[in-house]
Structures are given as structure tokens and as C-alpha cells.
């Protein structure tokens, strides 16, 4: 038998039907659902008189629209947002899927809730009407975002029409230096490959620096595979994975756990398996990075300067000129001279407990800069509870941060958490697109530690100077 990649193995285990031209029906083990991309899909089922094929494999949670302020029990003010969340309440009930409503302590960002509850397991296929579904690849699960038509298709049939992608290996060798995190790895990779570099591929991240990451860190890396254009990101499961999964509410128990473990241990890329593309970065050469522009590929080490559009070629020259103008920057300006108005810590990229611990390490016993607006939005109600138990919340509040309830919040600003025009934000989220965090808002993507450093100094800061 010819050697297989991890992607090949998961793919082969889930093909329910394959046509001659390779168009396949891929069986879906877990379907995660949120309020923004599902109402039209449920409506489609209703109109066609169809049921949800496997409600026991379907998990819904509202996250994009929910307010994260402490008074959210009083309801959602914005009418359209409220209608969307109410539609999910109603659909979850009517179609009988698992549901974590806004007032459930387990509510949170769908990509944080899935792993936390043990819904996401190695070797599974996971989809969600959200591009950051790639997150679940950290478990060695084939996970990717789908559109609403596909959400309806999965609801109705528990399968997805797919053609197999190509295999890409991204290897991060060696050890990371202090102050460098999973976020820096994933941004550095996009800086290297570009936002279209992964188009048509499923990426497997490997190498010592990846192995050394916790599950939280691995989720951060896989989360942004989509920003590099890849259909999914994967990391082979290992003891770190099994340790994380064991004992979670929906993880297998007893004899089933043993059976699952036996299979999970076969989920790795065989020696000599073929990759269509290989990218290698040296872990020790990665520095803390920031984005300067309006595409996640606009990445530079914090020690760098704002580039000149003429440094680029092709269509990127005009795009860089537009970005620099939009961001209100000057070519040649030192990145550490860029002053910040706001710090946002949270999102499916960096809203987990380890991210909050990293922030606490930097800000403990210190105060954020006067006039700084700084908020920390935990990824789930359970992350929030844990941070309170560990004393992190006290550190944040003493430093001057707002300590919020769980949701997507200012990552995409569908709820009231938004930037004003020209307000400049250091954010731990995943997209720095024009208008992403609010109309004309300016976003610099950074790691939690770097965001914490910026909150203290009021400018983009090399966190290595503070640790």
C-alpha cells in the first residue's frame, strides 16, 4: 500500500460515494452551527419539507451577534441581531439539534465550544458555516468552513460534495524563542506563502515547534490556515491531543475510549508520503510579528518598518498603497512608533485560557496606558469561569481592562463592540481587512502577549522588552 498523508487517511475514511471524476460525498461527523450563516439553511429545509439528517451530530451556539457586556441578560438591543439569535433558538428546538443558548455557561465562540465540550475528536470531519472552522484541525480532524447552501446540504444529508484537495506540508523546525507564540508562527507562515498560497491545499503543520505547542496553541495555528487560503489545516494527534480530549463531556469513555485511541494513533503521515508543496520555516528565526496592512499576509517582525508600495510587484503595489493610506501610516515609519487607541483580546484565534494566561503574565501588577480602551473577551463562558478561578480576571481588572462575557465581539464587530473611523486597534483576532472591526477602523493583528504589551505602552511594542 502506498504511503498516505494524514489528510489522505481521514479523507479515505469518510468517502460515502465517489463518482468517476473524483467528485465525492464526504460524510460529516460533526456539524457546528451559529446564528449568522444558518437561518437561510433551516428555512430551506422547512420549505422543502426536509429534516436534519443527524441532529445528534449537529451542535448549535449563538456567538457572532451576542452582546459581551455584563448586562446582556436584559436582551439584545439591535433588532436584526436579536431576530437572528431568536431564529437559532427556534431552529435548534424545532430540528432537535444540540444547543447552547446565550444564557448557558457553556455558550461561547463555536470553535472554542466544540473542542471544549469534546465534540471535536481526532480523525473526524467537522464543518461549520464559518471559515475559521479550520481551528478544529488542531486535533487531526479534517475541518473546514462552508457556505450556507452547503450548511443546508449537510443538514439534509450529513454529507458534503467535495473534490480532494492537494497536500501541503508546513514544517516549523526547532524551538521558538521567548516571547514568540503560536500566533507568530501562523502569521509568519501567511507572510511567507501569501493569502492565496494555500488555495487548493489542505495544510499539515508539523515539526518540533508545532509538536511543542499546547492544544490551545495548535488551535491558533490551524485557525488561520484559512487566512493563507487553505481549505483546512491539520496537526497529527499525539499524547498532547489525547490528554486534552480525555474526560471531556462528549469524548468517548471506557472501552470506546480505548478503541478510539487505537485508531487515533494511526493518524499520522506515513514515511515517504507525497506532498504537492512543502514550506519550511525555522522556529528559532520567527520573531514576534504584527500586520501593517489590510491583508493577513502584510506581516512583519515588530522590529521592522512600514514598507514602501514600490517594494512589491504586480497588483500588490496598488493594494499596498491603498492599505498604507487606509491604515494612516508612512513608509519607513518604525512599527514600534505606531500608537494604539484600543486593544482587543479574544476571538476563536486567541480567546482560550492559555491566551489569557499569556496576557496576565505581561500585565500583572501593571496598568494599561491612560485613555486606552482595552477589552478582554473570553472565548466561552467556561474559559471566563476558569480565568476567574485562576485569578486572571482580577489581574485584568486591576490593570484597567474591561472583562467581558463570551462571544465573537470585536473580531468582526457584528455586535456593538466596534471601532470608530480611524480608531487604531491591536487585536488578537484573525482579519485586518478594511472595515473588519468597524467602518474605517484600523487593525494590527498580534499575539495575546503583544496585545498586552501594546495596552501597557500605548504603541505597538516588542513584548520581549517587557519579559
Amino acid at each position: 500500500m502506498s504511503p498516505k498523508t494524514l489528510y489522505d487517511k481521514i479523507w479515505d475514511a469518510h468517502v460515502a460515494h465517489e463518482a468517476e471524476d473524483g467528485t465525492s460525498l464526504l460524510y460529516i461527523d460533526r456539524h457546528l452551527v451559529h446564528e449568522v450563516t444558518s437561518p437561510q439553511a433551516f428555512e430551506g429545509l422547512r420549505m422543502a419539507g426536509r429534516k436534519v439528517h443527524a441532529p445528534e451530530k449537529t451542535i448549535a451556539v449563538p456567538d457572532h451577534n451576542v452582546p459581551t457586556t455584563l448586562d446582556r441578560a436584559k436582551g439584545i438591543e439591535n433588532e436584526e441581531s436579536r431576530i437572528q439569535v431568536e431564529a437559532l433558538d427556534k431552529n435548534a428546538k424545532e430540528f432537535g439539534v444540540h444547543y447552547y443558548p446565550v444564557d448557558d455557561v457553556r455558550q461561547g465562540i463555536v470553535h472554542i465550544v466544540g473542542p471544549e465540550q469534546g465534540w471535536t475528536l481526532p480523525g473526524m470531519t467537522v464543518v461549520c458555516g464559518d471559515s475559521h472552522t479550520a481551528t478544529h484541525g488542531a486535533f487531526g480532524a479534517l475541518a473546514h468552513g462552508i457556505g450556507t447552501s452547503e450548511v443546508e446540504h449537510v443538514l439534509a444529508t450529513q454529507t458534503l460534495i467535495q473534490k480532494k484537495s492537494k497536500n501541503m506540508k508546513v514544517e516549523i523546525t526547532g524551538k521558538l524563542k521567548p516571547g514568540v507564540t503560536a500566533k507568530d508562527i501562523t502569521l509568519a507562515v501567511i507572510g511567507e506563502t501569501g493569502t492565496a498560497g494555500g488555495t487548493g491545499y489542505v495544510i499539515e503543520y508539523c515539526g518540533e515547534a508545532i509538536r511543542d505547542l499546547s492544544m490551545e496553541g495548535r488551535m491558533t495555528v490551524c485557525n488561520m490556515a484559512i487566512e493563507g487560503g487553505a481549505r483546512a489545516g491539520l496537526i497529527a494527534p499525539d499524547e498532547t491531543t489525547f490528554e486534552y480530549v480525555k474526560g471531556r463531556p462528549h469524548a468517548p469513555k471506557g472501552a470506546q475510549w480505548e478503541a478510539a485511541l487505537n485508531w487515533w494513533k494511526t493518524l499520522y503521515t506515513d514515511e515517504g508520503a507525497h506532498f504537492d508543496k512543502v514550506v519550511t520555516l525555522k522556529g528559532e528565526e520567527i520573531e514576534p510579528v504584527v500586520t501593517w496592512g489590510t491583508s493577513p499576509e502584510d506581516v512583519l517582525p515588530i522590529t521592522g518598518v512600514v514598507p514602501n508600495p514600490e517594494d512589491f510587484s504586480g497588483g500588490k503595489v496598488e493594494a499596498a498603497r491603498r492599505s498604507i493610506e487606509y491604515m494612516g501610516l508612512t513608509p519607513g515609519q518604525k512599527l514600534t512608533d505606531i500608537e494604539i487607541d484600543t486593544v482587543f483580546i479574544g476571538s476563536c484565534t486567541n480567546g482560550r485560557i492559555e491566551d489569557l494566561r499569556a496576557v496576565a503574565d505581561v500585565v500583572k501588577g501593571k496598568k494599561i496606558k491612560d485613555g486606552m480602551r482595552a477589552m478582554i473577551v473570553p472565548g466561552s463562558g467556561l474559559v471566563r469561569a476558569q480565568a476567574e478561578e485562576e485569578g486572571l480576571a482580577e489581574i485584568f481588572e486591576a490593570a484597567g481592562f474591561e472583562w467581558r462575557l463570551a462571544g465573537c465581539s470585536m473580531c468582526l464587530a457584528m455586535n456593538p463592540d466596534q471601532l470608530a473611523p480611524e480608531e487604531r486597534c491591536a487585536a488578537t483576532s484573525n482579519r485586518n481587512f478594511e472595515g473588519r472591526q468597524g467602518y474605517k477602523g484600523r487593525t494590527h493583528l498580534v499575539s495575546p502577549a503583544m496585545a498586552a504589551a501594546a495596552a501597557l505602552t500605548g504603541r505597538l511594542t516588542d513584548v520581549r522588552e517587557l519579559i
Partner: protein
Amino acid sequence: MEKFQKLQGIAAPMPLVNIDTDMIIPKVFLKSIQRTGFGKNLFDEMRYNRDGTEIEDFVLNKPQYRNAEILVAGDNFGCGSSREHAPWAIADFGIKCIVSTSFADIFFNNSFKNGILPIVLPQEQVDVLMADAEKGQNARMTVDLEAQEITTSDGEVIPFEVDAFKKHCLLNGLDDIGLTMEKADSIKSFEDKAAQERPWV
């Protein structure tokens, strides 16, 4: 789904690279629970001032491109989120075909589900079509899906590739779910086998 067979129409040039889904339809418009009505907010922040007046030099506001049915765009069109509101807005505006050197994967798939044909061509050919689109409303391109050919206003013929299954669905306006349900037996036997092999799932 509406069929796509042959289209003759005006092409609008958008050479900007990395046109993302937040540009195509900002999130403020994602709160609808309908599939229609997004066309007026297509490219909203590029197209309108804050007071709702049109930004004159935005391509789709120019008289010659207001009825464009084809977009010729820069690399990596549709990157970003999985929101199908992006192709819904594009279709609702009246655009049925997009040409670029590359598309983001999810957007690409979403387009086909909404009767939009995304066409990937090498840079040199996109350049030819971009130049043709720059000519404005007198330059009507023809996109023939059956023949897999684009014909410029000058009569230059550019062939393109398209996945056979996706082509079949577009040409006939087929609903994926109906097609998949015809394979219910395969799905059932997969489920039976998986329940034996991976009972914990």
C-alpha cells in the same frame, strides 16, 4: 437555482488584488435571515459615502458599468469569510460571472451554488480581459459555458477550464441536495459501516 448557459454582457474591471468578503458585503448586512436583497449593498463601503450618496469613481457607479454582468478582478477574489451573503449580493446585483487568476476556495464553491460562474485564467489572459473591460459598455464579452469559451469584444476567443460536475449543475440549474438524496443508499451503508468501525463518533 437559475441556469447558466451563455451570457453576453458588460464586464466591469476591478484590478485590485485580495478583494475580500468584508469588501463585497460588510458584516452589518449579514443580519438578514433572507437570501435576497443584498445587491444594493454589494461593495457597500467602496460604493457609497456614509451619507448614502454614491462614490462617483467606484467602477459600478460609473454609467457604463451600472449594468455589468461580468467582473474581471485581481488575484484571490473572495478571500475571507464563508459568508454566502457575498455571492448572494453579487447575484442580486446582476453579476453572473467573475474572472480572476484565483479565487478563495469557499467563495468559489459558494458561487456555483448561486448560479454564478467563477472562471480562473492565467495572468496574461486576465490582462487581455481586463483591458477589454476597461473599454466600457461598448465592449460586451460573451461567456459560453457549454463551449467553455470567453469571446472578447474584439472577437478573441479564450478557452477556460471548469469542473465537469459543477458545469453540469450550472448548465441545468440543478439543486445539489436533490442529487445527493438520490445516493441515500450509499450514505446509509456508509453510516452502518462507520457505526461498526468508529462507534464513538
